């Protein structure tokens, strides 16, 4: 302990950890800059059309990440825990949407022109609406009971214990889904209106860029939901109590806010958004299985940290940013597309090293830190 024995030295002391972090971070950023320069100016493999394609798919992905990230941020703000099972809530929503589509697909609704028409294609708007309704409701119920059964008995417990509980709940839900619905991926059959791979074709550069219907639909809907959520949190009585509980639980309780009720409602709102993201995932990507929620869940948490945890606009921005980075990153750095998950995690590490409070800053009460 000899190097710590001079308490009066007022010089700024840099610990080996800080040095290591800084040098590692600078090295990685320098490498990234070099790769980016090489890919963009020296090799110039991709034209503007390809970049636009990447950006579009990134934004669509990012919209879904943002919806899930909101759930992490809201819960983290209130309970200061990573709700590890949130990705599984999204998976439940995805299965809800899948089953609605499957059920409607099997309801025949023959017309004179097309005797094989099903309800799904006869009433596409109604079907999609129903899928979202069911998926979001089921996910919200799952979120509510998750909190009631697993987290509420541990309200006063240390954070490590809450986190382990959340991991346990995540494993449980994942495996329950696998045992019930099987390990193989199920194909989601959209209404013909939203067939995957069709869309508006926009001429750009040497070729055309496809703006798919499913992608546009997902993106517009996620932005819409995010706006609604923002209004709910900022304008309504429920939002006010949520912000109060996040800021200071005890004082909020003294001011007449029902803390348990607010926490439950927070989980319900998170579940609704995650469920919507799940249904979108099914519509846009077309495959659903028990593992659907896991990686998006972790990525969305990364997004929440990126934007500044506890900060709702931050989570939205973080989600979109992460989606775009993930889609464009492998191409921009000229590396394998298999490594896109590595890029997402590396971004997380870099942000935690250089700006641990996230892009827009954390919004957490002092006592929690």
């Amino acid at each position, binding site marked *: 302990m000899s190097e710590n024995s001079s308490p009066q030295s007022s010089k700024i002391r840099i610990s080996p950890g800080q040095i290591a972090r800084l040098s590692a971070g600078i090295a990685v950023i320098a490498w990234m800059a070099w790769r980016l320069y090489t890919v963009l100016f020296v090799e110039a493999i991709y034209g503007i059309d390809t970049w636009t394609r990447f950006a579009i798919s990134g934004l669509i992905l990012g919209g879904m990440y943002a919806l899930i990230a909101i759930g992490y941020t809201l819960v983290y703000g209130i309970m200061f825990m990573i709700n590890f099972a949130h990705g599984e809530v999204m998976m439940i929503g995805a299965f809800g949407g899948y089953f609605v589509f499957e059920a409607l697909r099997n309801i025949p609704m023959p017309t004179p022109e097309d005797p094989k028409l099903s309800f799904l294609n006869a009433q596409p708007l109604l079907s999609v609406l129903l899928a979202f309704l069911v998926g979001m409701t089921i996910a919200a119920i799952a979120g509510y009971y998750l909190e009631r059964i697993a987290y509420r008995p541990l309200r006063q417990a240390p954070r490590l214990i809450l986190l382990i*509980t959340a991991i346990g*709940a995540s494993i449980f839900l994942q*495996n329950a889904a696998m045992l019930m619905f099987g390990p193989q991926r199920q194909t989601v059959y959209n209404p013909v209106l939203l067939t995957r791979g069709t869309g508006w074709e926009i001429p750009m550069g040497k070729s055309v860029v496809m703006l798919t219907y499913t992608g546009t639909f997902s993106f517009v809907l996620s932005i819409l939901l995010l706006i609604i959520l923002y209004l709910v949190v900022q304008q309504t009585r429920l939002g006010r109590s949520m912000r109060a509980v996040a800021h200071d639980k005890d004082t909020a309780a003294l001011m007449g806010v029902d803390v348990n009720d607010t926490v439950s409602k927070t989980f319900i709102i998170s579940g609704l958004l995650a469920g919507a993201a799940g249904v979108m995932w099914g519509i846009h990507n077309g495959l659903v299985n028990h593992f659907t929620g896991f990686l998006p869940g972790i990525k969305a948490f*990364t997004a929440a940290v990126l934007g500044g945890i506890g900060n709702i606009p931050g989570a939205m921005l973080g989600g979109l940013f992460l989606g775009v980075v993930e889609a464009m990153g492998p191409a921009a750095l000229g590396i*394998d597309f298999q490594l896109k998950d590595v890029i997402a995690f590396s971004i997380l590490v870099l942000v935690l090293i250089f700006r641990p409070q996230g892009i827009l800053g954390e919004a957490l009460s002092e006592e929690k830190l």
Partner: protein
Amino acid sequence: MSNSIRNGLRAGIIFGIVIIFLFLIGFTLIAPELISKLYQGSEQTKDFNIGLLLPNLVIFMGLLGIWAGITGAKEDEPDTWAKAIVAGLTTGLTTGLLVGITAFIVGTLYQNEVDIRDYLVSLSNENIILFLFNQNALTGALYQFGLMTITSVIGGILAIGVGRASWRKNLAEKIGDSVRQTASMPKVAGTINSKYTRFALLAIIIVISFALPQQWGSYWNYVMGTVGIYVLLGIGLNIIIGWAGQLVLGYVAFFAIGAYTFALLTSPEPHHLEWNFWFAIVLAILAATLSGVLLGLPILSLRGDYLAIVTLGFGEIVRIMIKSDMMTGITNGPRGLRDVGGPTLFGQDFSTDINFMYLIIIAVLLTTFLAYRLQNSRTGRGWIAIREDDTVAQATGVNTFRSKLLSLALGAAIAGLAGALFASRNQFTGPEDHALMVSINVLCIVIVGGMGSIPGMFLGAFVLKGVPEMLREVEIYRLLVFGALLVVMMIIRPEGLWPLQRPRIEKYDEHQKQIPG
């Protein structure tokens, strides 16, 4: 009375949902098979024998029904028959209704030859036939309804005893007190804590552990070898999580680095190295330690849950990198490495399963010894101080950063050793051996065994790795049970099955009992 009905309804709904869930995951088919294995030994026929399984299903469902009845009735400690029967009946009717309706729906679909397995894979024909008691949909559903109702009423009646059973609790407390008193008597305490008793115990354990592998067949050596490797991993992660309190979720990364370093150095395939086993194992440990230090340097000052997510990411990154096309030239990609070298001793081959068991036992004993020595050392106490409160630990003169880094490096070293042994024993290692689930398994061992407790790691590894190996039928339910176990343990018994002694001693301190209020 209305209270009894309300409690009964609640218990009935919960149990109804649980039974439907068990049906949907196919456990209502597996459980009767397990029961029949209990009293008929291991001589089992592979084919589906409804006559054999039916009574066992009745036993299984009946026990669940009785449990439901007890749960529904015990809430308001029924003292009269009427109350108990009303509560039991409500529970039974609710459960029966839920289960019966499910059975009816599934049965009707089955009879109309709808392919339910497309959507719910566990609803195999056998499962449905058994659940309907080999009857048609309506009769089967009614049977289920009747069975649940009757057994729940029996459970409700049994619950009458619960109110009167408070003396049992008192007795248990009295026994506990007397045991504690005896243990604190100077003579007994002297014997228990004496050096010689410990040495004798240690000698017995060592003799047993060296005698057993000769007696067991190769199957048991395999199972216990796996348990041993997980004991190693448990002890290693216990240093990081249990003592230093740093939640590391990517522990498998060190395991993978150890295994791959070892395999690359001894396997003939990609690089033709085929080095000596002992040299390779040392290098594997060093590589894992180095990776622990390099990972720890930048991230260890992060907040607890950030650390968890970053290390989780690190574990995934290592696996993805090993698998990726970019690294195929070095790591053989998704195919993995074959013919990993076995141990040699003075030029002789040393890799029979018995020898390997010895090797693992020696590794476990050495690591355990190391861990025990560390536990009460200055370093170990520093770790526990950090776990309890980082800031206070720093204020009392613990170099927190260096301590944390040391714990991570040590944990990584042990994981590297375990990885090398694992690769060498299986003569193979591939990226899927190092999935996230290994980290989760080890985390479960640490939690279930008891955070911070070394004997707890042995117990945890045996319960979580050994027992499922023996019950092959329930293999698919293992992770499900792990998840549930984590949640339940955290709620009911967060200190684990074999908790660390230190906090308990403080809790039952005599001085605290005398403080009024």
